[in-house]
């Protein structure tokens, strides 16, 4: 109390420390594997308890999954007999011969076997286009965009549904199925949503009240309802709105629904990018006497789209997962192919369903995870540009 610095404080101020904190003992371990273990797993008593709890939970979850997918799994066999539990083998894991047997069906559905090279060609063209668009340093990316957004869709339509004049037999969309349908739906969503999304985003920021109003209504309406209701609308209402002779087939209706839905979400992603461009850029474009379209096309959009790439890829991930919903309106996509195959009597065993779902889950996970790693990579690369020195 004799300390003159604290003597003037009010008596009730009990919360003020009046003597120094005693020095802590020096740490026993600061480096090496033991210190690492201690720092990361056993830093304190609650931390140790957490580690034990986490280890117990992981022990419950991971070994059964590994057992099912690998150790107890059946790897060879011709039909369901191979995957049934027997007295010698009471624990049966995944039934991989089922996946191998139905693999072609998962990919092509009922597409006629002699024509399946066309689907492979479509996959190859698409892969080339995706690679061209995703590789940021690729040569002639402008040409790539033309290829991806104009050439590829036209060629794919002729390739997949057939063009008798070119010697490609017609294949009804009712025969399409499996992975190719999933890829077609996702591609249509991707290819259509970007241009329409950009148009809607520009419209939403337009100075013309009517244009703005229509864009806002469309975007908010579609984003406010679930995808399933949009798909229902497309599949039951679209045929009512067009003359009977032009009634679109089932797949086209679902594609319209997916395209509308993804465009509205893409519009919001692009709008966020447009908003991030500083006002000075717009003014600079005007000062250079560029009109609206050239200013947008040459100055604003290239910058806005570049910073939005990670978000665009993220919304493509969501779109790719959402393609499974076309299942509900009776389209034969990858998931539907698995649903049909898993109840096929030839392979019906207690483990067939889980095997089919595990296969689908691994497939979707690999694709979506790869996309999200790509988005993170681009984000890091863009951030590197922003981190550069000022001088």
């Amino acid at each position, binding site marked *: 109390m004799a300390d003159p610095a604290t003597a003037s404080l009010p008596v*009730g101020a*009990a*919360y003020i*420390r009046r003597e120094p904190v005693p020095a802590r003992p020096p740490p026993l371990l600061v480096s090496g594997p033991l210190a690492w273990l201690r*720092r*990361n*797993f056993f*830093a304190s008593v609650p*931390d140790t308890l*957490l*580690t034990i709890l*986490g*280890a117990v*939970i*992981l022990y419950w979850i991971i070994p059964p999954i590994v057992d099912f997918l690998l150790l107890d799994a059946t790897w060879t066999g011709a039909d369901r007999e191979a995957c049934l539990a027997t007295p010698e083998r009471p624990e049966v894991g995944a039934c991989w011969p089922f996946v191998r047997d139905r693999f072609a069906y998962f990919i092509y559905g009922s597409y006629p076997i002699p024509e399946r090279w066309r689907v492979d060609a479509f996959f190859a063209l698409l892969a080339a286009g995706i690679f061209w668009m995703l590789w940021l340093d690729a040569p002639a990316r402008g040409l790539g965009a033309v290829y991806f957004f104009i050439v590829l869709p036209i060629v794919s339509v002729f390739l997949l549904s057939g063009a008798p004049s070119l010697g490609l037999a017609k294949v009804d969309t009712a025969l399409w199925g499996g992975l190719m349908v999933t890829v077609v739906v996702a591609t249509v969503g991707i290819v259509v949503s970007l241009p329409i999304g950009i148009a809607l985003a520009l419209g939403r920021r337009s*100075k*013309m*009240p*009517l*244009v703005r109003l*229509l864009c806002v209504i469309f975007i*908010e*309406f579609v*984003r*406010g*309802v*679930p*995808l*399933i*209701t949009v798909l*229902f*609308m497309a599949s*039951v*209402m679209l*045929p*009512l*709105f*067009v*003359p*009977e002779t032009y009634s679109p087939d089932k797949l086209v209706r679902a594609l319209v629904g997916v395209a509308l839905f993804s465009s509205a979400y893409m519009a919001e992603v692009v709008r966020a990018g447009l908003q991030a461009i500083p006002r000075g850029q717009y003014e600079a474009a005007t000062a250079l006497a560029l009109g609206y379209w050239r200013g947008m096309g040459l100055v604003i959009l290239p910058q806005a789209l570049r910073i939005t790439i990670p978000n665009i890829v993220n919304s493509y*991930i969501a779109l790719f*997962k959402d393609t*499974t*919903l076309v*299942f*509900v309106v009776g389209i034969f996509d990858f*998931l539907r192919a698995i*649903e049909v195959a*898993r109840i096929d009597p030839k392979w019906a065993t*207690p483990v067939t*369903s*889980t095997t089919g*779902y595990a296969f*689908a*889950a691994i497939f*979707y*996970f690999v694709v*979506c*995870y790869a996309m*999200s790693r790509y988005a993170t990579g681009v984000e890091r690369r863009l951030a590197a540009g922003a981190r550069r020195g000022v001088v």
Partner: protein
Amino acid sequence: MERKSASGKPQVSLLYDRKVRSIAIQTLLCVVILFLVYAAATNAVDNLARAKIASGFGFWNNIAGFDISQTLIEYSSSASTYGQAFWVGLWNTLLVGAIGIVGATVIGFIVGIARLSRNLLVRRAASGYVEIVRNIPLLLQLLFWYNAVLKALPEMSNSLVVVGAYLNNRGLFLPKPAFGDGIGQVLIALAVGIAAAIAWRWFANRRQAATGKRPPVLLVTLVLVFGPAILAFMIMNVQVHFDLPQSGRFNIRGGLEVLPEFAALTFGLVIYTAAFIAEAVRAGISSVSRGQTEAALALGLRPRFILRLVVVPQAMRVIIPPLTNQYLNLVKNSTLAVAIGYPDLVQVFTGTVLNLTGQAVEVVAITMAVYLTISLTTSLLMNWYNARIALVER
């Protein structure tokens, strides 16, 4: 080129006049939209007339004539109308939504905080969960829970029995608690206790501000909340008995029945949405700058108070908007019920009622109106909330 008009403004050709152009473009757009609407409407009238489908909302009061497996309100297939079926579906949707939101919030916050833990194992396990769940389509997850997990449970005749509850592939049958007289007084005592606890908290805050000493809060709160209720329970001598499910030969009667469809849908939605909420929580907490924690440490706050008084209030500002978005997504995703047969709004109304009546336009419009109302109301509330908590800058 340019001539000056009397007012001194440069005069340009009408073709390049901004105002004229904008009016022309908007008029054109208007005409195109009106034409499209007109064409669609006339086609629809033609097509409906050809298919002999009635139009209008008259079907609302017709007898439905189909059964619904889970009804929270009075419903019978022989006496209830399509309108009542709509309400049954809506209530089922709201039930899944409410339970799903609570569950997803709890798990999402735990996982989100675990992702920032100093413990390597906990951190890695949490991020593994988030990455796996986020990258697999929800529909696939629901089908897995329903077809591969719940349908693989034992049959009715050899149900798993745990203290009066039966679990089999037709659902979970729980004892249903029933309370005798006096439960009302117990609830009143509980309410009084909660009010007293809030008052005590307010008093404790005041006292801490005045003297720097905080009276005990946690213990007093516990006593205040539960004390009166337990006391009332004993004084009134409330009888509690459980309505036990009775196992028959082919089915189970009585008790509280949880449909497997409901369980799969709710569980799948909780697991899926929790991963997204965890991301929002992690982003929110990481957004609070390290300087804030250090400043709190410098003020001598203890770790748990740092979290409660400094970090969480600032993080909530960032967390709440994406959190609301995830709540909306959960409600919208509950429409996937249609794939596993849980009688939600879409399954009952856009599925069964649409098939029975054929009135696609009306049914889809009503369904969309419901979801739009939910979404738009929520975003209005969100905008109001954001405006209220936004940082006030100079």
